[in-house]
């Protein structure tokens, strides 16, 4: 009896503490700068990234072939001579790579602002943004004449307190992540954002791309913390990857270094 009372008191005490520590928040307000704190910088932590015992990417033969034509600068397939990461020429990273917030601090964040009919996601890398329409419009049909976009076409809706984003129409020149995973312009992407407390946002993604992947492929769970910037500055850094600067750097430094 004594033991039960002690347990009850402990539970009561801990719940009181929790209530005292918990900050109020609106689960449907995603506004703010969200800094990635989960470790993985790729789309999914499959073995090629060297992290964890997860199943291999569910490639089709065509998907595997496309993957082997991408030569990343990271991971076990890193190739200094043949590297062809779009980032290395300042090409747009696109979605979902932008959403991964793959670069390390102090640029591993994106910001969300919400308007009545749209949510705008601002990416620090390249200082660019995407629009997620929440006005009820339908996604475009994936017809051959549809212009493919670096960040695709996106619409969003609320399912309880989870913000669900559906996207299509991606430019297939982008990689899913810095490990060189490919996609076609037929890829469909679903992102699920859930604010679990005042300071924490969780994200999982699922892509469907039958030409390259045999089944829907789910990302790992990514965790973002609100305003957890390494350096808080009064003015925006305005991080751009400038092609002329990157070209000079590659020509004079990086290419000679790697014997390219």
């Amino acid at each position, binding site marked *: 009896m004594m033991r039960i009372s002690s347990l009850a008191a402990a539970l009561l005490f801990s719940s009181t503490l929790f209530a005292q520590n918990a900050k109020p928040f609106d689960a449907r307000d995603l506004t703010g700068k969200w800094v990635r704190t989960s*470790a993985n910088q790729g789309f999914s932590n499959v073995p090629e990234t060297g992290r964890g015992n997860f199943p291999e990417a569910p490639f089709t033969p065509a998907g595997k072939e496309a993957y082997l034509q991408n030569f990343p600068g990271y991971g076990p397939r*890193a190739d*200094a001579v043949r590297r062809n990461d779009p980032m*290395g020429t300042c090409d747009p990273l696109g979605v979902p790579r932008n959403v991964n917030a793959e670069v390390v601090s102090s640029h591993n964040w994106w910001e969300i602002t919400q308007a009545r009919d749209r949510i705008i996601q601002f990416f620090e890398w390249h200082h660019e943004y995407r629009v997620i329409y929440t006005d009820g419009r339908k996604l475009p049909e994936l017809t051959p004449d549809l212009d493919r976009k670096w960040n695709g076409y996106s619409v969003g809706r609320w399912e309880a307190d989870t913000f669900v984003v559906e996207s299509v129409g991606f430019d297939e020149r982008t990689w899913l992540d810095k490990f060189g995973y490919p996609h076609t312009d037929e890829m469909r992407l679903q992102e699920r954002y859930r604010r679990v407390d005042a300071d924490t946002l969780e994200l999982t993604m699922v892509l469907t791309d039958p030409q390259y992947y045999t089944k829907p492929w789910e990302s790992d769970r990514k965790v973002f913390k609100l305003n957890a910037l390494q*350096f808080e500055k009064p003015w925006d850094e305005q*991080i751009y990857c400038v092609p002329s600067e990157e070209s000079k750097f590659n020509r*004079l430094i990086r290419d000679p*270094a790697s014997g390219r």
Partner: protein
Amino acid sequence: MHTKLSIIIGIAAVLCAATVFAHHGTSISYEMDKTINVTGVVTEFDFSFPHPSLYFDVKDEKGQVVKWGAEFLPTPPVMRNLGWSKITIKSGDTVVLGCHPSKSKKPVCAVQSITLNGKAMPLGGGPGAPAGGQRGQRQ
């Protein structure tokens, strides 16, 4: 307990190092486990994102000038937070670099430490940094 904590921190540092020294090819272009010393006179300091770089003249054993280039591991925002700016290094300044040599043996390297006109400059305390912290981090 302390031993266990140290091991965890050590493993974390190794994992972190593998991640941070790898901006589309940094860690695979240089011999990151080796350091050479290079002394030269600056011809250009390019404080641009994401690769601050330095160009300088080095005299070889025969007195011939060899054009060198070097990249910094931290990005400009990180360096700025350590007190750097685009005018920290000027043409004509003398630099002594502790540098990771290129795998190709060409006269380019990745800066591990820098002394500018006789003064040691901070580059942050990334994994493997010597006492006082000269090494920076690369995304």
